[in-house]
């Protein structure tokens, strides 16, 4: 295979017209030949910048080198030293702003496709049944991990690797957190990828108890006092949806992105064999511009709707990954940018019939550094719709913080935890991921889970 060192080996994807009607994965990934060719573009830098861009510090040059040599099993070993969820990260990490954003190749040409190589290695390892080895020397200490999303799985995996007795408590009926209820099948296959990576974490010795709602079924204090857990990690995410607070928002046909996605992803409402219903809508507006908004829009499209993204700033400020926006456009999602809803219009039976919006222009930068949108006077207009999906971000669930003695939260209800090791205000309790930062990315949550595992190990080693 010929390689132009300045250009990436192209990745194969499902045709946009075809994939707009199915829930199969959009990206088809590299095969061995393509992966080896792409890996040969790596400069194997001594002072590798890519590693510094990775929140879990995978030894990227080392694994890419093994791919280049065709030693895929060894490559998978290098990755699994640092990451418990490579098949997930290879698919959903924002590599363009992390490892690939720092790649030296990227100065002149295109950066090495590190994410796609990671995905290739993880998929190869799974297909060839490479399983992680459980730790032989067990420690006589129990750790409870709350939440089985990226932060919890990573923290649990790291602690199990060094011999701790770890139990994950999950509130829903399936483990995986946002990987299962939030990110759609066409971006992250549930059985093939997520369930398998969770099996790998279990293979390390981690136990998972589903259907336990910490703060309701049992509290953290009870876990520590009655059930003998020596330390606790809280990785409960940011699950509470925000609404705009505009008129008409309780009408039939207005959904949070969380509800719409949970019905389709976790409850598999897109599959007729499953009992849970979903109202896909015919003319759908998704309000918001993040990755979740793109996921909701592309889900609605696949369920047969005509979909428009409504976002109050311009394309440049869209918080979603460029790749997601690109895929959404290819599939036929329309964008109504610099537009803000002011009221949802409701028919006499209580159903959505449209939405009043105003046009916006960008003013001075706000504290986030982004130029804040300002309403253009007299620009009001109506959109005709039957469904509105609100995707305005999420915040942490207060269920745990409100039932745990001595656990400090900030004014946004995020748990206060030290960045370095995730230590909270309560002894023996650590936290990380969206529960601490508010909604962020899978990989940042994994980084926090890993850091907290170090903190918990240090704490329990001294205790």
């Amino acid at each position, binding site marked *: 295979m010929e390689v132009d060192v300045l250009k990436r080996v192209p990745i194969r994807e499902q045709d946009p017209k075809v994939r707009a009607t199915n829930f199969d994965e959009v990206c088809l990934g590299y095969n061995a030949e393509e992966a080896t060719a792409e890996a040969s573009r790596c400069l194997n830098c001594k002072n590798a910048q890519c590693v510094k861009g990775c929140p879990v510090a995978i030894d990227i040059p080392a694994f890419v080198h093994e791919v280049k040599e065709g030693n895929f099993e060894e490559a998978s070993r290098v990755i699994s030293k640092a990451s418990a969820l490579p098949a997930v990260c290879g698919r959903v990490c924002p590599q363009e702003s992390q490892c690939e954003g720092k790649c030296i190749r990227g100065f002149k040409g295109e950066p090495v496709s590190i994410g796609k190589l990671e995905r290739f290695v993880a998929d190869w390892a799974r297909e060839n049944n490479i399983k992680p080895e459980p730790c032989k020397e067990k420690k006589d200490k129990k750790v409870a991990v709350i939440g089985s999303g990226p932060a919890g799985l990573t923290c649990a995996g790291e602690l199990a690797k060094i011999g701790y007795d770890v139990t994950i408590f999950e509130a829903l*009926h399936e483990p995986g957190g946002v990987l299962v209820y939030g990110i759609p099948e066409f971006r992250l296959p549930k059985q093939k990828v997520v369930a398998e990576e969770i099996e790998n974490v279990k293979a390390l010795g981690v136990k998972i108890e589903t259907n336990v709602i910490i703060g309701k079924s049992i509290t953290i204090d009870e876990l520590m006092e009655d059930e003998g857990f020596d330390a606790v990690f809280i990785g409960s995410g940011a*699950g509470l*949806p925000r609404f705009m*607070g505009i008129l008409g928002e309780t009408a*039939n046909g207005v959904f949070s992105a969380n509800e719409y996605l949970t019905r389709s992803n976790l409850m598999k409402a897109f599959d007729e064999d499953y009992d849970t219903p979903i109202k896909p809508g015919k003319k759908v507006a998704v309000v918001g511009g993040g990755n979740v908004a793109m996921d909701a829009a592309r889900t609605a499209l696949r369920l047969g709707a005509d979909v428009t993204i409504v976002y109050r700033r311009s394309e440049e400020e869209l918080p979603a990954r460029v790749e997601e926006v690109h895929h959404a456009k290819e599939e036929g999602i329309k964008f109504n940018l610099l537009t803000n809803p002011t009221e949802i219009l409701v028919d006499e039976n209580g159903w959505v019939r449209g939405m009043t919006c105003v046009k916006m222009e960008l003013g001075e930068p706000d504290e986030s550094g982004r130029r804040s949108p300002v309403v253009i006077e007299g620009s009001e207009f109506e959109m005709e719709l039957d469904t509105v999906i609100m995707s305005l971000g999420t915040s942490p669930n207060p269920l745990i913080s409100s039932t745990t003695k001595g656990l400090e939260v900030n004014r946004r209800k995020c748990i206060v935890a030290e960045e370095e090791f995730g230590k909270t205000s309560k002894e023996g309790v650590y936290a990380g991921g969206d529960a601490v930062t508010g909604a962020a990315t899978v990989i940042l949550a994994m980084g926090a889970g890993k850091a907290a595992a170090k903190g918990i190990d240090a704490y329990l080693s001294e205790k």
Partner: protein
Amino acid sequence: MYKILKAEMLAENIYLMDVSAPRVAKSCLPGQFVIVKIDEKGERIPLTICDYDREKGTITIVFQIVGASTKRMATLKAGDSFRDFTGPLGQPSELCNEPLDELKKKKILFVAGGVGTAPVYPQVKWLKENGVDADVIVGAKTQSLLILENEMEKVAGNLYITTDDGSYKRKGMVTEVIKDLVQDKGNKYDVCIAIGPMIMMKFVCLLTKELDLPTVVSLNPIMVDGTGMCGACRVTVGGEVKFACVDGPEFDGHKVDFDQAMKRQQLYKTEEGRAYLKEKEGDTHNGGCGNCN
């Protein structure tokens, strides 16, 4: 897996089950609910806790067939299992938070309609165990749909039963019994707790507002996760949007926007489904059909 220890049909389309769920049984209180899921393909079904046994680690649920999942649930027997069973969810009944000596001074009236009798039962029982006798009105469409009569008899102070068609005890709606007790007999109540079809709770609240009788209702809206994640259970109470799953399920009935809540319950009902429910169950199906308002 959560094993079913007892399963019985209480009335046509209404079933009772004791399910082994030690974590829930250990921590639940009256007024809270659970979510059950029969198998991989089932829906998550929210059900108010009907009874619990902390020692045996069991929860009693009562449900009515309203869709595909509940229809399959009805076929389960003792010895079978639910794939998932989680809780307790929501806030306990406000009664549980009140100091007992305060509570003992109160005159409490319960109004139960149809399957709503099931969630009323643990509250009346809890009060009885704590030395408080409450009056209970139970309404059913017809005698064969009346549930938990004997159980309720044991724990209620005065029990008043009424059927819409007069097939058993007195004839008429629960609101007529309230009027009798408060207006004609001059009974004084400090609080009324009404649980049943949405339409029943609406009319009870319209009446008790007139009678100046504070009223608590328990809502059972559409929900998915039950922990505040999806927002499907949004309900307007006193002009504010609340999530019934975490802020409720009990609310001040005089502040609930029932018309909106009833419209929201129609969300996933198909035309056929609604027609079927209307024919089969009339107004005892917890307000879910969309035809009953």
